[in-house]
């Protein structure tokens, strides 16, 4: 287990001011350890999607904070005909060995520890130990929690998206609050209200603090600066194709849109919620009037009626962040989840979902975004990761201690819990995230 540093509340308070934060929030390894303990291991964390583990015994492993976890599909039962999903610490209670050894797989008949063959049911409860008579008259108790694979304090799923919480706290829906729109906006685009994962995911390591990513996702000033090269390159080729064919392929627009000028980004709105979530409202022009979109509208209208179809497709969402580690781009059915490794190192998993029952062309359209923007050969994140790495280096150096979040400070619509920006380029969402951060970090101190 990692050590738990002691940093008292007063010290943490001194690092976060209303319009600026101290560089230590990004670079101090002790603060990172405290974040793992007080944020990641206390709030709801995204595990994965139920379609990743369709059959009994299927499992998927991942980290929550410092804890190695596994989610496992159980056998069908009366209460759970598709098999209940358990989220467990991936650790044998005997000698601590990780029971599930791959990133994903099937556990076989039982979850079996490879060291001494302790066996567990898919819900983590002990099935058998070898040589059980050797435990006679000892303190070993096969029914004690000490001898089971430990369950997460809570796990729950919302429309197929599985979350777990390792400490006491609010229920999943209360925690998500209005930010649950991200999952609704994704699923409602399917005529049966359901999505499933497209295998495999992409995994990319950024050499920077996890917060760089969370801030970048709702930073409307950076795209036309950071992504100028790709935006302009795509716009040039897009124009050439238009000259040749009379049409502009939508996937070029996905790239050229990054050159959208500040004034236009400024029309978007960021809304920050108490647990740190952000809803970033804006539109990438993903409801055009081409035949594919029309066909999608027809399928949804048949399933839900015209009014609901209009409501679902007219939602105006660019990104939603479920703090501290999930970013969902619902109109394109893409989700990124962070698994922080160290103060200066973050692993991200990038997932794409298919809308069950929607036209194939809608999947293909979103797939372009997955391939061009979210792949390991991304034309976009190459420059993001570069900037964040340089940022991490800068914030590891003394000289100037403060990170500025002054833009449009004082003009936010703020009722003390919900903080809404007046304009898209405001740094309100960063201020809102740090308000939540400080609350998490200093609670129970």
């Amino acid at each position, binding site marked *: 287990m990692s050590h738990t540093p002691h940093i008292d509340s007063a010290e943490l308070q001194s690092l976060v001011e209303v319009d600026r934060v101290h560089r230590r929030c990004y670079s101090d390894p002790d603060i990172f350890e405290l974040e793992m303990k007080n944020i990641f291991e206390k709030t709801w964390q995204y595990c994965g999607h139920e379609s990743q583990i369709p059959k009994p015994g299927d499992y998927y492993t991942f980290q929550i904070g410092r804890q190695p976890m596994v989610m496992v599909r159980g056998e069908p039962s009366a209460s759970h005909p598709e098999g209940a999903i358990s989220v467990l610490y991936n650790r044998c209670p005997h000698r601590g060995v990780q029971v599930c050894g791959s990133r994903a797989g099937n556990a076989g008949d039982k979850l079996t520890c490879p060291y001494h063959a302790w066996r567990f049911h898919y819900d983590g409860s002990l099935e058998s130990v070898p040589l059980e008579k050797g435990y006679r008259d000892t303190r070993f108790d096969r029914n004690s929690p000490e001898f089971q694979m430990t369950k997460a304090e809570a796990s729950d799923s919302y429309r197929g998206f599985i979350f777990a919480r390792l400490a006491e706290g609010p229920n999943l829906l209360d925690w998500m609050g209005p930010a649950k729109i991200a999952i609704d906006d994704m699923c409602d685009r399917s005529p049966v209200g359901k999505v499933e994962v*497209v*295998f*495999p995911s*992409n*995994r*990319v*390591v950024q*050499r920077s603090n996890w917060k760089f990513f969370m801030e970048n996702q709702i930073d409307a000033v950076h795209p036309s600066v*950071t992504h*100028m*090269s*790709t935006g*302009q*390159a*795509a716009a*040039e*080729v897009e124009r*050439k*194709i238009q000259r040749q064919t009379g049409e502009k392929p939508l996937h*070029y627009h996905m*790239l050229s849109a990054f050159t959208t000028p500040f004034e236009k980004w400024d029309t978007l709105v960021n809304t920050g919620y108490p647990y740190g979530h952000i809803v970033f409202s804006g539109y990438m022009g993903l409801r055009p009037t081409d035949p594919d979109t029309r066909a999608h509208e027809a399928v949804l209208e048949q399933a839900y009626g015209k009014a609901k179809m209009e409501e679902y497709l007219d939602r105006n969402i660019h990104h939603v962040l479920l703090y501290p580690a999930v970013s969902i781009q619902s109109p394109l059915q893409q989700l990124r989840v962070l698994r922080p490794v160290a103060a200066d190192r973050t*692993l991200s998993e990038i997932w*794409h979902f298919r809308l069950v029952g929607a036209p*194939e062309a809608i*999947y*293909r359209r979103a*797939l372009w975004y*997955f*391939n*061009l923007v979210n*792949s*390991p*050969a*991304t*034309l976009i*994140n*190459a*420059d993001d*990761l*570069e*900037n964040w790495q340089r940022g991490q280096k800068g914030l590891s150096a003394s000289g100037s201690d403060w990170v500025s979040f002054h833009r449009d400070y004082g003009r936010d619509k703020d009722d003390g819990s919900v903080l809404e920006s007046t304009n898209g380029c405001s740094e309100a969402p960063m201020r809102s995230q740090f308000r939540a951060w400080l609350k998490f970090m200093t609670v129970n101190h």
Partner: protein
Amino acid sequence: MTNKQAQTAPDLALQHEVEQFLYRQSELLDNKQWQSYIDLFQPEQGMYWMPLLPSHTHWDGTPSIFVEDVDLMTVRMKRVTHPNAWSQQAEWGTSHVVSNVAIESIDAAGEIHVRSRFHMMELRRDDLRHFGGSYRHQLVRTADGLRIKLQRVDLFNAQSPFEYVLQIWV
């Protein structure tokens, strides 16, 4: 596998021609001659594809690391040569070795199917990365010489987490 029977003089000439083509392609990458590299692909049909999984059989409709026709390759070239491509400010270079070149078949349309393996070292700032895998080239003969209809690149480490990303073709 090429059997002994097939090792006739014309096959050796083709083998040599194909090998020289692949060596030239890797030299163009290492020398950052992007336009000349793109010109090795058929302008209308040419595709560069790096799948995420060896089991993927076609780029169409499949999540991929790279899936680029000549137009998208041109976007990538224009990006990395743009004066404000920030990630390109870091000095970097690559060194490719291509080997195990085998002509698998020549189909009825005259398309040559070639299998080979590669290793690539990349230095970016002070960090060294190592990539390896296999190439499958589908080559066609044109008035300008051999051209690529499809290059499939199976990266040996495609499923491990990427330390940073790939900015250019491998």
